[in-house]
């Protein structure tokens, strides 16, 4: 058992010693004697203090010690045994890099030595941004999630698994500074080139309500334009080419055809996706942002994204200029489904401009965890190429502080309520002490003795 405020125990020990010393000093009423000239004595407190070899009122002493100890332990905030301390190793893998989990664990254990290690992986399907710096916040989120449920973790080690072609961008130093400990950079010997993919826009289905949407719909046109752009940017070479089908659905709330495409874009024309809530007062945003690119314009907003839980299966991929979510990605049986709540002006060609590349790159990005059948073993063993920092990050940096600044490691029911129970016990003991003290006073037959105590 540990204590959140061990110094309170020291204060309680001092109190116990003090009360014991007081009980060795007997405060009593001296024996009476007749003295006719007593009037010439100055008025003083009649009680006299003398030392005794054994404490007086042993029962009262024990009750008082029990009360002090109970209050001291309660205020010291006892905490459940944390068990053997463990280091959490966060292995963050860059998008496009693959590493065998077994090999990664061996690398982690070799690096951390004899410490107990718990390993967690941050893989690219949890990374929204496709740049190295985004691994840091993803690793922070993963560490916080594990530490919140594992009180035994006392330190965190970060292993960044990067490809040979990884280059730090302008945000990397800032994100690195935010990590409160050592970072080990792991390079794989070879990084397989990402598979080439080709997008194909599925034709509109006559069975869906899309028939209510005009055929020269600007969104359709934009997708045709941007798919051609993405396909054109793909380098031509031999080898495997993955085909991702993009199904665009412009129907509003209501039944729609089940999509079997790899990427399903649910972009209702009325700007109200089925799973989103309505805004109390429709407004507009001045920009939509994705992939560090902003598309300036007037974008009406009629729906509000109600997150089921970030860090789960849905991830925002496009935002309005004020930070509200404009589009989210979630897995689907065939790949992924991206819901968009942007209402473009049908007469505007903003979606066809270069400024919209970021938005459509996000909407047409490969689905996470698709086309990757788990993490496959690399042909060559990865190695740690650099270490940045002296000490491991403390686990407390990833725990949310409580209002009183004390460690907020989650505790079981009994440990959470133990301070209150101990205070209740102390109160009962003090009430018992009061009763015993009164009984002693009555037995002594001296009401003044009650006041004297």
């Amino acid at each position, binding site marked *: 058992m540990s204590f959140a405020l061990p110094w309170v125990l020291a204060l309680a020990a001092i109190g116990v010693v003090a009360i014991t010393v007081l009980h060795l000093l007997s405060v009593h009423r*001296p*024996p009476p004697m*007749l*003295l006719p000239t*007593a009037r010439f*004595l*100055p008025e003083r407190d009649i*009680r006299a203090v003398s030392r005794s070899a054994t404490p007086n009122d042993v029962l009262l002493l024990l009750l008082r010690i029990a009360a002090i100890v109970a209050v001291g332990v309660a205020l010291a905030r006892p905490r459940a045994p944390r068990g053997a301390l463990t280091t959490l190793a966060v292995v963050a893998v860059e998008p496009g890099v693959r590493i065998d989990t077994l090999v990664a664990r061996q690398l982690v254990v070799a690096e951390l030595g004899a410490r107990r290690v718990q390993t967690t992986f941050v893989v690219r399907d949890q990374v929204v941004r496709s740049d190295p710096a985004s691994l840091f916040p993803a690793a922070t989120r993963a560490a916080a999630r594990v530490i919140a449920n594992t009180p035994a973790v006392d330190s965190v080690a970060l292993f960044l698994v990067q490809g040979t072609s990884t280059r730090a961008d302008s945000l990397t130093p800032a994100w690195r500074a935010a990590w409160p400990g050592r970072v080990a950079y792991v390079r794989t010997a070879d990084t397989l080139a990402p598979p080439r993919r080709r997008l194909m826009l599925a034709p509109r289905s006559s069975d869906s309500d899309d028939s209510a949407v005009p055929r020269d719909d600007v969104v359709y046109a934009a997708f045709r334009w941007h798919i051609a752009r993405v396909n054109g940017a793909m380098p031509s070479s031999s080898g495997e080419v993955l085909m991702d089908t993009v199904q665009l659905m412009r129907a509003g709330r209501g039944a729609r055809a089940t999509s079997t495409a790899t990427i399903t874009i649910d972009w209702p024309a009325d700007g109200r996706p089925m799973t989103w809530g309505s805004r109390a007062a429709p407004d507009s945003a001045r920009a939509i942002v994705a992939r560090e690119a902003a598309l300036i314009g007037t974008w009406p907003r009629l729906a509000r994204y109600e997150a089921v839980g970030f860090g789960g299966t849905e991830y925002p991929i496009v935002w309005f200029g004020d930070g509200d979510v404009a589009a989210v990605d979630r897995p689907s049986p065939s790949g992924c489904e991206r819901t968009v709540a942007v209402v473009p002006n049908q007469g505007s060609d903003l979606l066809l401009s270069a400024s919209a590349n970021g938005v459509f790159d996000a909407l047409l990005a490969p689905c996470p965890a698709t086309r990757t059948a788990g993490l496959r073993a690399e042909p060559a063993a990865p190695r740690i190429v650099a270490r940045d920092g002296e000490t491991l990050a403390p686990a407390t940096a990833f725990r949310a502080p409580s209002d009183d600044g004390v460690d907020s490691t989650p505790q079981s029911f009994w440990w959470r309520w133990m301070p209150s129970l101990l205070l209740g016990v102390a109160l009962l003991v003090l009430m018992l002490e009061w009763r015993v003290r009164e009984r002693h006073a009555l037995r002594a037959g001296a009401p003044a003795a009650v006041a004297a105590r």
Partner: protein
Amino acid sequence: MSSQDYGPLLDAIRGVRWPARRTVGAALPGAHRSHQRGTSGEFTEYRLYRQGDDPRQLDWRLLARSDRAFVRLTDDRAVLPTWFVVDASASMAFPDTRTPNVVSKWQMACRVAVGLGAVAHASGDPVGLIVNAPNGPLRLGARTRRGTVGEVARMLDLVGIRADGAAAATTTLAPLLNMIPARARVVLLTDLLGDADALVKLAAQRHVAGGLVECVHVVAREELDLPSGAFVARDPDDLVLERKLDRALHASYRTAFDAFRARASQQWRATGAGYTEVCTDAAPARIVRQIVGGRPSERALT
């Protein structure tokens, strides 16, 4: 005689005389100089013969030598009734006489009273006694008959006082003085812890009226030298009064008590009364001699 053996005391003060500190009023012939001039006793002066003088007092030899008639004058002597007022309040029973070789203030007062009474009686003075006993004042009228001193001793022995105040006598002595003639000699034997101020006032009045007052202030040795240790001191005359007593308070107590005694001495002497402080560990015979000796200056004629 009483249970207390006054024999050694009486033997020690045999032959001691206790002259009055000033001339007394005319009364029966006695041992004390009287205001009245008489023809007996020691020669003091001559006075021219006046018409009506007793011719038997003429000094014939001086007449023969000087051919002038003079009368021989001598000082007259009178008796001085002496009353003893003994304080029998609870404070006088201190200290407890159950402890061996301890004399209480009451016992010392009784011894001094019997001693002084014997001296006064031996001079032919009537001796009376008043005690503020628990059941009311006890009075033994002034008399000169044989055995008066024994009666005084027996009466004192009959008065039982208890320091715990269970049989508390009144602490006021002033009303008892009204039972005594104005021109008598009053000897107060008390610890002055009662109505001391009223007694001083009455003493001054009696002195003006021609009476004599002697104050014997009895102090216990245990009141001067307090015991060590911590106690709760209670006044036997007022059991409600309780004070803490320990070594740290001895100095302040002694200072206050000494100031009280000094003030009492000053007040009593200022009234013209005699004042003698008696400690319980003193020899009664010496105290009696000290009291009867008085101050030379106070023997002057008024």
